[in-house]
């Protein structure tokens, strides 16, 4: 387990080194990609100067709000859809094809609804991430072994107690998987919207740097996002695995 993680790390490092070398030898043009060492330098400049602190904070806040909304609403919707056979049959065909439609193009609609501020961005991110939570919630509830519900009946638990003491913990690992995906999609939603649509946040900062040929800054910011997402993802992944292993029978 540990060993494998080390090998993975080594592979990543080897790729980075190869890129560094390719840049140093001039195999790739500096206008295309800058050496990783410079990306790191740029990143540390960005962090030290505090120039982007506001953008970073804004983006993180938006991601967090989106995560909270999509997890909470996704859970409630998932439970509701699970409870009704009709709703379920109604929703399933759409869930399957949901991601094919680029939510971004409805941005003008959202700014009409929510105004030109973070709310519209958050709405897009929520739209993107809530589906993962709904699906995971339904999946989790589906997979509660019926024998556990029968056991609850034998113990004469009330429906509320059954929900809290049996259904919730039994499906919790699946809920967590959904929550984890929601976090990933919230990141994607917020940063992509900023990149494409807004005049603010980290996504915009990258787009701006790109437009103004500030490759150094652009790659510094990209590195920041890659590192942040990787860290968050790895942490949640580890928790996720731990939870899932409990279910393994």
């Amino acid at each position, binding site marked *: 387990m540990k060993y494998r993680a080390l090998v993975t790390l080594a592979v990543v490092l080897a790729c980075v080194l190869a890129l560094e070398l390719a840049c140093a030898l001039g195999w790739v043009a500096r206008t295309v990609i800058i050496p990783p060492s410079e990306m790191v330098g740029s990143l540390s400049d960005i962090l030290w100067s505090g120039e982007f602190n506001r953008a970073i904070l804004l983006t993180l806040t938006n991601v967090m709000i989106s995560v909270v909304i999509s997890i909470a609403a996704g859970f409630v919707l998932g439970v509701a859809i699970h409870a009704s056979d009709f709703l379920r049959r109604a929703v399933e065909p759409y869930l399957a094809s949901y991601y094919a439609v680029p939510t971004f193009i409805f941005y003008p609609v959202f700014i009409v609804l929510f105004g030109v501020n973070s709310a519209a961005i958050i709405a897009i991110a929520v739209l993107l991430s809530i589906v993962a939570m709904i699906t995971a919630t339904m999946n989790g509830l589906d997979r509660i072994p019926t*024998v556990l519900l029968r056991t609850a*009946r*034998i113990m004469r638990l009330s429906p509320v107690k059954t929900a809290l003491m*049996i259904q919730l*913990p039994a499906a919790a690992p699946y809920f967590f998987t959904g929550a984890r995906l929601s976090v990933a999609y919230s990141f994607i939603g917020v940063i992509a919207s900023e990149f494409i649509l807004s005049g603010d946040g980290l996504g915009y900062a990258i787009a701006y740097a790109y437009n103004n040929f500030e490759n150094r800054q652009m790659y510094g910011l990209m590195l920041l996002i890659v590192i942040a997402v990787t860290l968050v993802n790895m942490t949640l992944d580890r928790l996720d695995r731990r939870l899932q292993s409990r279910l393994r029978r």
Partner: protein
Amino acid sequence: MTVVAMASRDAPKAAAEPPAASLKGVTRHYRFPGGGKTLHALGPIDLDLRQGEFFSVVGPSGCGKSTLLDVLAGLSPPSDGTASFEGKPIAGVPDGIGVVFQEDASFPWLTVEANVAFGLKRAGIGQAEIDRRVDYAVGFMGLRDFRQSYPAQLSGGMRQRVCIARTLVLQPRLILLDEPFGALDQQTRLIMGDELLRLWRETKATVLLITHSLDEAAMLADRVGVMSARPGLFIDIIETGWPSDRDSRIVADPRFGEMTGRIWEKLRAETMKHMQTQGAGPR
């Protein structure tokens, strides 16, 4: 005071005494979703479970054994006829009944200890009493070293013992077991059977055991009910006449072979009949 002492009531009664549970003309039909067709799964069944007896049920797969257990546990109402427990008609799950299901029903998010204590906590019993009962049951089921383990860390047989312990601590007066050792190999089953007998002797509860294993049925029970293929009916109910301090060593007894032979004779025709129709099974 131990669980045993608390649970113990009078010794097994003669047939004249009121039965622990009783089924009269019970049938069960399943309705298929959509179509109006129904499946006649069980009955009509007439059966009295005597106070404190060990009754086992064998029958071909799909003959309605689990359905019978559902009716007794109050999990599903009979389509026809009446079911009663301790003289009162069964509507909903009655108090005093414990069930161990065929599938592993241990809660994977709780430790062994917490699993066993789960029902007691719900019943609002004091902590000291809970501790005592859990302690006893965990020890009795040979799980003492695994109190803090989670089910995922146990073998299938140990998880099934957790479920038995969880049922046991509630001191049910009627214990229903649906093929509880299905996941185990035969040798381990026989040993678990010994533990079950010991348990039964100590608690004096009435036990109904559903099993696929003829040895198990013949070795453990006071009476063995042999069911026909679906719709399940009792085609024979055999009194074993074993002493109550029996254990798995009686498999070596020649009378034991005779007994299984007799049950097998009854079942053979039924199973053959059943196998010809089992192609496109319901699951």
